[in-house]
């Protein structure tokens, strides 16, 4: 189902409910409302809405009017995450209020279209002035010379790296030491589950709090997975007579898995002390041949043989982790903080959030990733664009964003506002934020050649999941990846 390219970032894109076949109901049936006097035009509009609804998050232009008032400079700002649109629209409205000489046109595109259109628009020299950027993509843009260094761009020089959570600005700093993105948010990983399910099992949220894990026997985390697994006859995974070939509820949900393992294997691998590359950022030598990595792979995908984790292909794109948990086909799901709202909105499910298990290093470890705002080197209005993204990083904007955010903004003020906003909904999101506060994170691999690495490693991860490869077999793929850097 998932190709390297698509799958890779499917994790980070907050699949809109409309993209999954389970949710075609989210598309309205507008022609019904019009009754018999339905005009042809109405019908066409109706079907257009339906079509837009089903073909993913869609390409909606939002935020205010579409043309600049006289005398104002118009700049274009693009982002892909529909969940972030309301928060950023509000902040940008505030920006335009304070800067009447600038008019910002916001465009939101679905994840897949976003990068295709961005590339095409760079070739045509008609790209946005500022846009939301991703770590897996910006090294490529940097190499192509289409994003401008932020240093020396007016107000951006006054923003110190310390304004953001530790490490975020580092992720957006190129090999030349210049900044190529303003951190706009961050994300970490935790465990999500349905509290009702846990209650029925006679367990409490506290039971999930202090689990430990190791690659040899999986520790108390694996015991918990077994405890929560049920076969078709209702036998639990930790009981005699459990049939691992005929599982009704898996202990852990199956996410899309790629070379970063963001919401799958990376927390486990990180908690053995393993690192992706030889450096925090811009590493040039990968460690997929490390023993700790191999042991993690053998444990993680070995769960398939034990019946605790779904075999390859059981859940396709139509059944993402939130659906697996919602329908009771999986008990626990490792999930990114950008999915909190999506999980919370799943019907018939009471969301519980637990921290990751602590590994051999003694603490839990989460991958730490963040989006940034970049400025196009082709832009004629870099100054205005810089003012915009500097504003988005300011306390004023971060407060506005944090209050509306279904995610964690990059500064302390924004994060605090978001934690409060989640608390008002009855959600304790500290399992996500604690990782950052305690420094228990590993950075998203910021490297060159990410597309080629993705393509090479995908086959290895797929085959390991299909139980055709062992953890030790990753070494030969690692050689191919490292050859890219020679």
């Amino acid at each position, binding site marked *: 189902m998932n190709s390297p390219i698509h799958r890779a970032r499917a994790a980070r894109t907050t699949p809109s409910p409309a993209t999954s*076949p389970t949710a075609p109901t989210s598309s309205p049936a507008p022609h019904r409302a019009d009754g018999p006097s339905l005009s042809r035009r109405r019908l066409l509009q109706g079907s257009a809405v339906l079509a837009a609804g089903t073909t993913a998050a869609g390409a909606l232009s939002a935020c205010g009017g579409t043309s600049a008032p006289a005398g104002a400079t118009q700049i274009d700002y693009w982002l892909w995450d529909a969940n972030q649109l309301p928060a950023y629209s509000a902040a940008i409205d505030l920006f335009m209020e304070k800067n009447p000489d600038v008019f910002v046109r916001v465009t939101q595109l679905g994840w897949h279209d976003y990068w295709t259109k961005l590339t095409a628009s760079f070739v045509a020299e008609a790209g946005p002035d500022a846009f939301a950027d991703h770590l897996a993509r910006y090294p490529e843009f940097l190499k192509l010379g289409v994003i401008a260094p932020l240093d020396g761009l007016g107000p951006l020089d006054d923003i110190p790296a310390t304004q953001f959570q530790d490490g975020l600005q580092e992720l957006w700093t190129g090999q030349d030491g210049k900044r190529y993105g303003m951190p706009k948010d961050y994300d970490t990983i935790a465990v999500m589950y349905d509290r009702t399910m846990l209650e029925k099992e006679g367990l409490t949220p506290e039971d999930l709090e202090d689990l430990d894990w190791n690659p040899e026997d999986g520790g108390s985390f694996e015991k918990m997975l077994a405890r929560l697994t049920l076969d078709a006859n209702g036998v639990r995974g930790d009981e005699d007579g459990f049939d691992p070939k005929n599982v009704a509820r898996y202990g852990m949900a199956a996410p899309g898995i790629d070379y970063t393992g963001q919401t799958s294997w990376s927390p486990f691998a990180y908690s053995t002390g393993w690192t992706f590359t030889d450096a925090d950022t811009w590493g040039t030598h990968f460690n997929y041949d490390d023993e700790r990595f191999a042991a993690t792979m053998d444990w993680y995908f070995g769960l398939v043989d034990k019946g605790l984790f779904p075999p390859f*292909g059981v859940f396709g794109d139509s059944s993402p982790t939130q659906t697996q948990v919602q329908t009771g086909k999986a008990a626990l799901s490792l999930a990114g903080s950008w999915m909190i709202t999506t999980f919370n909105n799943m019907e018939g499910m009471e969301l519980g959030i637990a921290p990751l298990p602590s590994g051999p290093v003694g603490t839990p470890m989460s991958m730490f990733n963040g989006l940034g705002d970049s400025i196009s080197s082709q832009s004629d209005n870099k100054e205005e664009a810089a003012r915009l993204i500097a504003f988005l990083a300011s306390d004023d904007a971060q407060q506005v964003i944090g209050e509306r955010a279904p995610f964690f903004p990059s500064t302390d003020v924004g994060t605090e506002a978001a934690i409060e906003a989640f608390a008002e909904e009855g959600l304790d999101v500290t399992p996500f934020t604690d990782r950052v506060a305690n420094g228990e994170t590993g950075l998203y691999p910021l490297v060159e050649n990410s597309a080629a690495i993705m393509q090479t490693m995908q086959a290895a991860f*797929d085959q390991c999941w299909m139980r055709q490869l062992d953890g030790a077999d990753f070494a030969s793929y690692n050689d191919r990846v490292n050859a890219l850097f020679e």
Partner: protein
Amino acid sequence: MSTATTSTRSAPRRRRKDDTKLALLFIAPATVGLLVFLVWPLLTGLYYSFTEYTTLTPPQWIGLENYQRLIADPIFWKSLKVTVLYVLINIGVQTVVALLIAVLMQRLTQSTILRSLVLTPYLVSNVVAAITFLWILDTQLGIFNIFLTWIGFDPVSFWSSETWVIPTVALVNVWRHMGYTALLLFAGLQSIPTHLYEAARTEGAGEITQFRRITLPLLRPILALVLIMTIIGSFQVFDTISVTTQGGPADASKVLQMYIYENAFAQYEFGYASALSVALLVILMVITFTQYWLTKAGQSDLD
């Protein structure tokens, strides 16, 4: 025109000159189209295959490096194997089914409605057909898998099993294209004179003998052309895979076009992608010429 003809009568030398100009004028639109949309892209594609090119920076000449890399690239050879497997299943099943439909249309019914109905899957766009089947054959929610469980089988991971994915894609495309292929063959059948069948019946030949001795031999030129067209189309499979599996699982459905697309639009390696495209072009040319020659598509037994 008419004035030109009158004036040429008195001056035959000038007539030829005028005709050339006029002829050039007439073929100009087609020529321009051909040059701009076919010859030029072909030539630039050939050129790019000898360069390193990222679209945003100017291409750099690197000679045969892309082709050396292609020969040594295991993913290229794997994707070639996958593509050939796809074409074999797709064309094999499609041709048999389409021939059957065409013969049934000719021998059993005169109804225009019934004949048009056969074409309906072709009216659905490839992407829509692929997405629809993606849902129908989904492991968890697909209605076909629910049906399988209902009659006592285990659900099949049509899209995410290495064994099933290529047959699945091939059969989805058979579903979409069989009606169109059948229609082409049907047109060929119409050109076979009915008196041949009447004569055969008088001699006591059954339907099967008639099919083997009359229909197949006389349909050969059309069948050969249809095969050439469908095989070329089949080699170009991309959309179905792009919207369903994107080449997975573990490259099991990474057909050549998908690999070309990935190189060009995910990795910005337009040079290498061009080299892969040239390889596909060469393969298609060889296959087409061989086929043309083997099936004597240019001759008919009807004369």
